[in-house]
């Protein structure tokens, strides 16, 4: 293997043979040769092409939809609207990264009475070619009664604001308000006496922040294909983070039993939380059913991805924090208003937990509000809700540290949570590596190297993410040559075939190359939660570990029978098994064991000991005072991985999350006009970072083993996106003397802040 200079590990040599090494991923060759099949690559005999008609208006009542001309067009095989959807139950379904009310999910698939955002789906068409399908869309007539759009928290909270959902009443921790509102819910976490805490403070900083809507930005647009058979059996091919989540959503919104639905995963071109909710799958099923049971494929355009699939929430945030003269925090208060988009379900709940989680403070109050606005329904995006609130909190902590003349790492060490300390929701933290991360950053070459040069600054911020366990199941088949077929149903979105196979190989004591992982469909493997919540390498990894243990035990059992010895005398020796004089290598053991009957084991797990993750980050920036452009010069991430199973992919997660965070911090945002039309629905104008916009991103993997996992693993995928916006805001402040309180910190915003300070005007 090549050396990877970007990373340094904080621990001594690994205690394991496979875990901690960097083998090539099993699906690698397929993916570098173009053979891997993603959602849009699927082709079936007789397949029709589907297209979706989307609302040009942000908020309107649908008076009438006339599809007759479209249906009459030669080549059109089916047209569906919300009239073809059964009325979905008003019931909350938890999909792993956020709960969804199924009625809203149904309305989001095809608008019923109202369209609630620019890009809201209204009808779908299946035709014999793409161009016919597109012509058919143009023939569908929709009569609208336009309504005033409600685009932001501020607008939504106005007393006379138009209501998006007539039946939405604010839920206040179980109490339902009488009057309808655009505020779906209000939650509060509280401990201690807030104002008493603030009275103890030598310094109180109270600031307001705004963050804009951003998108996950996966490079593969959503794609789904469905085929309904005459007997009602449904097969769906989907590029999804969770085949079982697709199955349950389709079953619910279409009123089908899950036994009638098989979901087959394709390779997936990124998701980051955005490929959990379904958009196309139920439409493909309806179209196939209406089109004489021909298969129908739907693939989104990039514009559809941006206008119509889950971005994550914009937010208005107030943070008020007090500290004593030594830097100890005396009271912390947060008010979080998160834009849910058209239907309730912003990640404000997770944000409320993330908010002050890194800080040990007895006195805090966090209020969270879930607010509907005429934007696409928010869906999960990597550590949902975390980046917004951490940007605000980490900016205020930095301001406190600076005012108290404390080093920003020292400030965080003084207040750092440790095992047993409580999160804002009062749940205690298990063993964590936060302090170790802070110390590692302080000792890093980056932090110890002074930054010089004009208009340059260094910023530090931290982030907490709780991670998740969830349910996983897997099977392992022992082949007579000693190799193991390994069937899982966790979507491999970035190398988990490798990290899972490695844990099975480690557990069974065989070479990684002998494990052949395969991602199964919903009929071939038992239930698995989505690939999300940083859970796969942790929880499905645990299943892999158990499979190894079970196979090993079964092998010993069978060898004991063959050798006519007690099973406890059969032990692992070298790469094989031994009992007294008898000794066999693993492959020979497998051949012997399978002579009489095949050997297969299965397991299901629901581990609860998912350890929390912390990431501490440091950035050096240079700000061009004439243009407001921020250049990231150097970036270091320190993160506790518990145990890095495949360090290269752990580094990749860290670097990727930070790259997304940098984009979010500096340039990404949804730009709407006053009518609520999205203006930048392309990858030209929705500005994700290019290779020219980022430096090499250094990684330091801290390994404080998670006691809740056999190899000490904790989730690593999400926490890294939480600190970048705060890190960069603090660096920009040190470079320029101005604090930016709104994301993105784009050139016009930076310029405006600099001009506010200097009094310059381009019109003078």
């Amino acid at each position: 293997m090549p050396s990877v200079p970007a990373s340094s590990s904080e621990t001594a040599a690994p205690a394991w043979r496979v875990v901690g090494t960097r083998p090539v991923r099993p699906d690698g060759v397929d993916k570098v040769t173009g053979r891997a099949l993603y959602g849009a690559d699927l082709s079936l005999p007789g397949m029709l092409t589907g297209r979706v008609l989307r609302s040009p208006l942000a908020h309107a009542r649908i008076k009438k939809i006339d599809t007759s001309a479209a249906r009459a067009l030669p080549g059109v095989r089916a047209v569906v609207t919300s009239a073809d959807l059964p009325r979905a139950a008003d019931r909350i379904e938890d999909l792993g990264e956020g709960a969804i009310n199924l009625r809203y999910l149904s309305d989001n698939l095809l608008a019923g009475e109202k369209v609630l955002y620019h890009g809201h789906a209204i009808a779908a068409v299946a035709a014999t070619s793409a161009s016919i399908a597109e012509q058919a869309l143009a023939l569908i007539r929709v009569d609208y009664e336009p309504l005033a759009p409600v685009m932001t928290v501020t607008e939504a909270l106005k007393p006379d604001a138009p209501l998006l959902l007539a039946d939405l009443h604010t839920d206040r921790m179980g109490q339902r308000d009488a009057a309808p509102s655009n505020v779906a819910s209000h939650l509060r976490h509280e401990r201690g006496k807030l104002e008493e805490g603030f009275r103890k403070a030598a310094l109180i900083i109270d600031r307001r922040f705004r963050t804009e809507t951003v998108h996950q930005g996966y490079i593969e647009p959503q794609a789904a294909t469905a085929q309904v058979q005459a007997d009602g059996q449904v097969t769906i091919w989907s590029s999804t983070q969770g085949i079982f989540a697709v199955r349950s959503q389709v079953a619910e919104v279409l009123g089908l039993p899950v036994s009638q639905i098989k979901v087959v995963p394709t390779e997936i071109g990124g998701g980051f939380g955005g490929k959990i909710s379904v958009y196309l799958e139920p439409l493909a099923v309806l179209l196939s059913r209406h089109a004489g049971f021909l298969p129908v494929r739907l693939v989104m355009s990039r514009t559809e991805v941006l206008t119509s699939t889950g971005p994550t929430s914009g937010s208005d945030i107030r943070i008020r924090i007090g500290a004593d003269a030594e830097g100890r925090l005396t009271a912390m208060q947060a008010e979080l208003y998160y834009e849910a988009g058209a239907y309730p379900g912003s990640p404000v709940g997770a944000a409320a937990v993330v908010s002050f989680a890194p800080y040990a403070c007895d006195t805090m109050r966090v209020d969270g509000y879930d607010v509907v606005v005429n934007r696409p329904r928010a869906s999960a995006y990597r550590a949902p809700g975390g980046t917004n609130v951490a940007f605000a909190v980490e900016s205020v902590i930095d301001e406190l540290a600076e005012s108290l003349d404390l080093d920003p790492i020292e400030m965080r060490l003084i207040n750092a949570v440790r095992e047993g300390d409580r999160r804002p929701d009062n749940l205690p933290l298990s063993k964590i590596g936060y302090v170790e991360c802070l110390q590692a950053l302080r000792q890093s070459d980056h932090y110890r190297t002074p930054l010089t040069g004009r208009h340059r600054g260094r910023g530090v911020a931290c982030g907490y993410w709780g991670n998740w366990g969830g349910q996983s199941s897997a099977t392992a088949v022992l082949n007579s040559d000693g190799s193991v077929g390994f069937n899982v149903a966790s979507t491999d979105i970035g190398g988990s075939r490798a990290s899972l196979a490695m844990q099975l190989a480690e557990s069974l004591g065989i070479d990684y190359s002998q494990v052949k992982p395969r991602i199964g469909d919903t009929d071939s493997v038992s239930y698995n939660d989505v690939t999300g919540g940083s859970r796969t390498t942790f929880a499905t990894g645990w299943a892999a570990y158990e499979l190894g243990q079970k196979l090993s035990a079964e092998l010993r059992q069978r060898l004991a029978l063959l050798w006519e010895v007690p099973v406890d005398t059969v032990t692992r020796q070298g790469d094989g098994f031994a009992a007294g004089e008898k000794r066999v290598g693993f492959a020979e053991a497998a051949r012997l064991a399978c002579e009489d009957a095949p050997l297969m084991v299965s397991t299901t797990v629901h581990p609860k000991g998912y350890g929390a993750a912390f990431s501490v980050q440091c950035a050096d920036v240079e700000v061009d005072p004439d243009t407001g452009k921020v250049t990231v010069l150097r970036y270091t991430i320190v993160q506790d991985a518990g145990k890095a199973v495949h360090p290269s992919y752990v580094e990749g997660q860290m670097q990727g999350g930070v790259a997304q965070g940098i984009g979010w911090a500096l340039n990404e945002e949804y730009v709407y006009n006053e009518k609520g039309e999205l203006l930048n629905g392309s990858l030209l104008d929705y500005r994700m970072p290019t290779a020219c916009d980022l430096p090499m991103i250094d990684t330091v993997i801290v390994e404080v083993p998670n006691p809740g996992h056999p190899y000490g693993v904790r989730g690593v995928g999400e926490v890294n996106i939480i600190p970048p916006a705060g890190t960069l805001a603090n660096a920009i402040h040190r470079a320029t003397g101005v604090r930016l309180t709104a994301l993105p910190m784009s050139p016009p915003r930076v310029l405006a802040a600099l001009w506010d300070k200097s009094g310059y005007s381009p019109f003078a």
Partner: protein
Amino acid sequence: MRKKSVLEFTLNGETRAVLCEPQQTLLEVLRDELRLTGTKEGCSNGNCGACNVLLDGVLVNSCLILALEVQGRTLLTVEGLARSDGTLHPLQQAFLDHAALQCGICTPGFLLSAKALLDEHPLPTESQVRFWLAGNLCRCTGYDKIVRAVLDVARTQAAQPPSVSATPV
């Protein structure tokens, strides 16, 4: 529907003929008619690089070219990068060794851009690599490992005597 025309061109070293409609892009013909789905569609308007191919050795977005424009010309797609005996192109191997892909959807486009770069600048600087890859968006990796993989191939090849090209183009 307009009259279909026969498009003849050299694809990954082989002469191919395919019927296509005038408004079909090269990307559509590759994917839908020739079933070569290694070339990916990420945006369809030249902003993501997932559909990059080499046309007469020049890096282009196949979504912004009409298929009929390549009449008589020579095209290399990701399917033509490895040798016919299956040996991976050094860039393909380096992407695997460096874990330079996560989801992999952008990888074919990056490989073609990197090949175009190394064909023209066998020993590029880091900033040259970043410039040549700037038209390829990757949302998973932050580019770090991709840039390292390309630099590694350049250094390795510079240290070795020139050998026969692994690709037919």
